[in-house]
């Protein structure tokens, strides 16, 4: 039996990595896990080994600083490892992992979840066509491999990511055919007061927009892509003007492109929290369903802490602070001294969250969003289920995501529902006139990530199978 470490942390982004550093500084033995090979999360993602030298960006600088701090700390970082199940026996957490096809188990007295976010994409006709990628996915590709998503790209979606992604594509020599954003200039004006808490980011955003304007990249404000043309490859998109409700009502425009980036904001990744027993609450201003967690990451469950975007989309600056706090309080609960700056950090969290919350507000769903998804549109990508199929299941009486799941298999495919459950829930709420707060996510079940079957058959050998003697004839 391996001696359990003090604290195991899932996710090495701004929250998890800072949690590990502050807990280790307090004296705790910390193991930090991430499915990427290097710490940084998606926002401060490290470059691939293929990039030998590149111009630094604020993100790459922040990531490199964090990676240096971790390398010079007592934290044990394990990269390229995936957690697929979380259990608890007595006061000890068991975290089941798979790395390079091999199963593993880590035990700890405290568990900090810093699982971050994933992207919400409102399904539209043609969004499954090769060449259409997530907007956040595009940033991962641009940061990690520095490869533009295609030759001519339409960058579409809500919030600041469209301008960042379009700028990065152009910086790498790619062509941006157009930016299509459901947000209007008025939406941006309404979040400006909160944005002024970060003049550095406002300046950067204005430089992106000025540069894109000078380069004559068309920016379609208050528009959404309503169709991606092409079956085996993208030929172009149709962008339609939205009405005040967000429904496509106005003039259509055709734009030629071979690739599309599409995203409608971030949602907290809460499945690990669900498996660990955390309760969920509906907070649209935080990205949707979030686990109950305090500013310092503590939860109702002893030894469980949740921090960063996985506890609500507040952005990287707030995630760093909440991570530090969670590391401090987790270590303190195990008997280590509380750092002297704990209270100061705690009061800095709300201000740090202002900018991130304003960005989340730009992706709040609107009643008209559902009109973007036509009956033939694929909702569950893994099982190729259309909206019409899901609607038929609701007509038969399905009232929950669990019921839809067992009736249609939506969410039982390879992604585990990560790209359909939210869309199904929003559609159900809109079509049935139900409060989204009454349609919780389905029961979380392992595996959290796809696991090879050999992991479950750990130690199994065909020759060990007991074969009974044949029955006498």
């Amino acid at each position, binding site marked *: 039996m391996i001696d359990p470490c003090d604290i195991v942390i899932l996710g090495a982004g701004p929250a998890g990595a800072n949690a590990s550093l502050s807990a280790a500084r307090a004296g705790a033995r910390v193991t930090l896990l991430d*499915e990427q090979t290097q710490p940084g999360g*998606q926002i401060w993602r490290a470059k*691939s*080994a*293929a*990039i*030998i*030298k*590149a*111009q630094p960006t604020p993100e790459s600088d922040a990531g490199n600083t964090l990676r240096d701090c971790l390398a010079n700390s007592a934290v044990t970082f394990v990269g390229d490892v995936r957690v697929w199940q979380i259990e608890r026996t007595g006061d000890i957490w068991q975290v089941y992992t798979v790395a390079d*096809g091999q199963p593993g188990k880590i035990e700890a007295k405290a568990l900090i979840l810093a699982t971050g976010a*994933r992207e919400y994409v409102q399904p539209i006709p043609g969004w*499954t*066509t*090769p*060449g*259409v*990628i*997530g907007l*956040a*996915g*595009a940033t*991962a*590709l641009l940061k*990690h*491999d*520095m*490869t*533009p*998503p295609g*030759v001519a790209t339409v960058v579409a979606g809500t919030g600041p990511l469209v301008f960042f992604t379009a*700028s990065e594509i*152009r*910086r*790498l*020599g790619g062509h941006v055919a157009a930016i299509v954003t459901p947000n209007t200039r008025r939406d941006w004006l309404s979040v400006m007061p909160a944005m002024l808490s970060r003049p550095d980011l406002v300046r950067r955003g204005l*430089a*992106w927009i*000025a*540069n894109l304007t*000078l*380069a004559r990249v068309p920016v379609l404000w208050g528009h959404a892509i309503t169709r991606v043309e092409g*079956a*085996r*490859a*993208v030929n172009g998109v149709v962008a339609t003007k939205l009405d005040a409700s967000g429904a496509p009502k106005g003039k259509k425009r055709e734009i030629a492109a*071979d*690739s599309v980036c599409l995203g409608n904001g971030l949602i907290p990744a809460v499945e690990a929290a669900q498996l660990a027993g955390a309760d969920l609450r509906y907070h649209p201003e935080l990205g949707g369903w979030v686990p109950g967690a305090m500013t310092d990451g503590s939860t109702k469950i002893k030894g469980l802490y949740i921090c960063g975007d996985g506890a609500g989309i507040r952005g990287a600056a707030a995630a760093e602070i909440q991570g530090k706090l969670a590391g401090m309080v987790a270590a303190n609960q195990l008997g280590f001294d509380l750092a002297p700056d704990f209270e100061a950090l705690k009061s800095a969290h709300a201000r740090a969250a202002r900018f991130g919350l304003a960005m989340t507000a730009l992706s709040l769903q609107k009643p008209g969003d559902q009109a973007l998804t036509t009956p033939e549109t*694929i909702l569950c*990508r893994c*099982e*190729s289920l259309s909206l019409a199929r899901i609607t038929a299941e609701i007509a038969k009486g399905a009232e929950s995501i669990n019921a839809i799941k067992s009736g249609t298999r939506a969410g039982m*495919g*390879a*992604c585990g529902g*990560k*790209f359909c459950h939210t869309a199904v829930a929003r559609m159900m709420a809109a079509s049935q006139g139900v409060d989204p707060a009454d349609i919780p996510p389905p029961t979380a079940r392992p595996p959290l*990530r*796809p696991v*090879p079957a050999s992991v479950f058959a750990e130690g199994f050998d065909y020759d060990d199978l007991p074969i009974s003697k044949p029955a006498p004839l």
Partner: protein
Amino acid sequence: MTPLLQNHRSPVQRAPMVSFTFEGEALSAHAGETVLSALIRAVHLYLRDAPEDGAARGAFCCMGLCQECLVLVEGRRVESCRQVVHDGLAVEALKRVPHD
């Protein structure tokens, strides 16, 4: 006109090229980049068929969640957004396995 953002294309220094194959076609990649990145540069965006309806699919989330970019490497299903290219790597596309 002076761009506010410099074009940083030239300063990106990449690792030397290695060879790999996709569906038997010889392609090149910078050592250490993801299979997905190399395939995008080679304009191979269509990576697999959806198991249920056979529709063409390609990478989507680019961070290991959606499983849309699965390819076969040495008989194992791997995400091309996480698989790193090395010299001689043989990548096969996932053919449709129809249901009865």
